[in-house]
């Protein structure tokens, strides 16, 4: 019985199916807001779903120089990891007793797997541009993980526990993390790290449509590309939820909190899309300097302020 319940939450709600549907809707919000910023009408709401169905119906080409297994398996590994992160976060938010010791660490760890899977998949593709994209993705991963982990540790330090349940309950009792100076600074750092984790402009260096022609997913086609796109859509869904859980009091589905939960989510998505639309792409060295310089310093300041009790 318990196994069936776990399977249900992994595959249907709040796991694969639910986060895929909401993630694809989020990519529609992204495209629509982008279109409005550029004074256009933009695609209809079902556009991401049409893209998915179309890609699933197309031929999957495996390039002659590619390692077949690694090339086709890695998008699935990334998808499994994004689903797992979504399942853990939603189960904790809906039912805090399902939390376990150190699940913050597990979520942080699982959230890096899609990027690593993309690196491996692109390296297996045998395409020089894909390998260039993979190497950039790796550098970007090293760059943003450091400030991200320290910013999340600010909250952990204040709460005094690594479990998501105590983070949510601490915020319910003593006010959200965003209410304090250190929380606001850590939140800003995390927003930028999220931008890089999603490989959105200004940190879309691994994909670089105009420069690497798709970079790390240049060789993916048909169903494999659909899974890569789904993976990105699900990360776009999971990361705002992670931020809300860590800094903004979590989400809930009781009474008025349904509305505030959705508003929190949409607010973070719109911030990300607006950053995306008002910035040019930076070079990889500029990105690494940005994350290891100002962002690292800000996260350390947040940590010190948290230790001083601000």
């Amino acid at each position, binding site marked *: 019985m318990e196994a069936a319940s776990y399977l249900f939450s992994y595959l249907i709600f709040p796991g694969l199916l639910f986060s895929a549907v909401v993630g694809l809707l989020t990519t529609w919000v992204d495209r629509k807001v982008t279109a409005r910023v550029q004074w256009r009408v933009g695609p209809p709401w079902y*556009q991401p779903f049409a893209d998915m169905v179309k890609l699933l119906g*197309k031929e999957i080409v495996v390039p002659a120089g590619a390692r077949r297994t690694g090339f086709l398996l890695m998008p699935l590994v990334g998808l499994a990891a994004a689903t797992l992160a979504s399942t853990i976060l939603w189960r904790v938010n809906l039912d805090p007793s399902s939390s376990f010791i150190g699940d913050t660490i597990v979520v942080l760890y699982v959230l890096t797997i899609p990027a690593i899977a993309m690196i491996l998949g692109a390296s297996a593709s045998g395409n020089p541009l894909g390998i260039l994209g993979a190497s950039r993705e790796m550098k970007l991963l090293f760059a943003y993980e450091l400030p991200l982990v320290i910013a999340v540790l600010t909250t952990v330090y204040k709460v005094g526990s690594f479990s998501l349940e105590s983070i949510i309950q601490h915020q319910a009792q003593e006010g959200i993390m965003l209410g304090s100076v250190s929380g606001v600074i850590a939140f800003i750092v995390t927003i930028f790290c999220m931008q890089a984790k999603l490989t959105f402009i200004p940190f879309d260096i691994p994909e670089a*449509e105009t420069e690497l022609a*798709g970079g790390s997913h240049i060789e993916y086609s048909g169903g494999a*590309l659909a899974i890569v796109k789904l993976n990105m859509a699900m990360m776009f869904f999971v990361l705002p939820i992670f931020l809300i859980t860590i800094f903004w009091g979590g989400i809930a589905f009781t009474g008025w909190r349904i509305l505030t939960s959705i508003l929190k989510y949409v607010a973070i998505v719109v911030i990300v899309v607006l950053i995306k639309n008002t910035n040019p792409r930076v070079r990889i060295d500029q990105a690494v300097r940005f994350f290891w310089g100002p962002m690292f310093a800000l996260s350390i300041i947040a940590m010190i302020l948290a230790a001083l009790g601000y």
Partner: protein
Amino acid sequence: MSLALKALKKSPWVFHVNTGACNNCDIEILDALTPRYDVERFGILLVGSIRHADVLLISGPVTKACLPRLKRLYEAAPKPVKVIVFGACGCRCGIFRDGYNVVGPVDKYIPVDAYIPGCPPKPETIIAGVVKVLGTL
């Protein structure tokens, strides 16, 4: 009509191939992708990689140097893929017909689904051409 075909009509991703055009058609293609015409309303996106393409938009008479690349690009595209030829040169070699290096037109080498004549055609004509190709699916 199958579901995959229906979805293909709603999201044709375009890959732009220049087989020796004078760049005039390419400028008009870029015009068609600007916010003024907003082709993303119909799900049309310009993609950078041939593996993501559903429609090949070819401009230019085929030159000797471009011919092997054109054939390889057509083979590399995941099927089903539609081919649209854009501009007078692509359709019948245009003013480059007697050029020493011109071996075209495009439909001598790969199957073509639609021709958009003009030197260069207007952006509205591109949209009309894409709509006609989707109608044949």
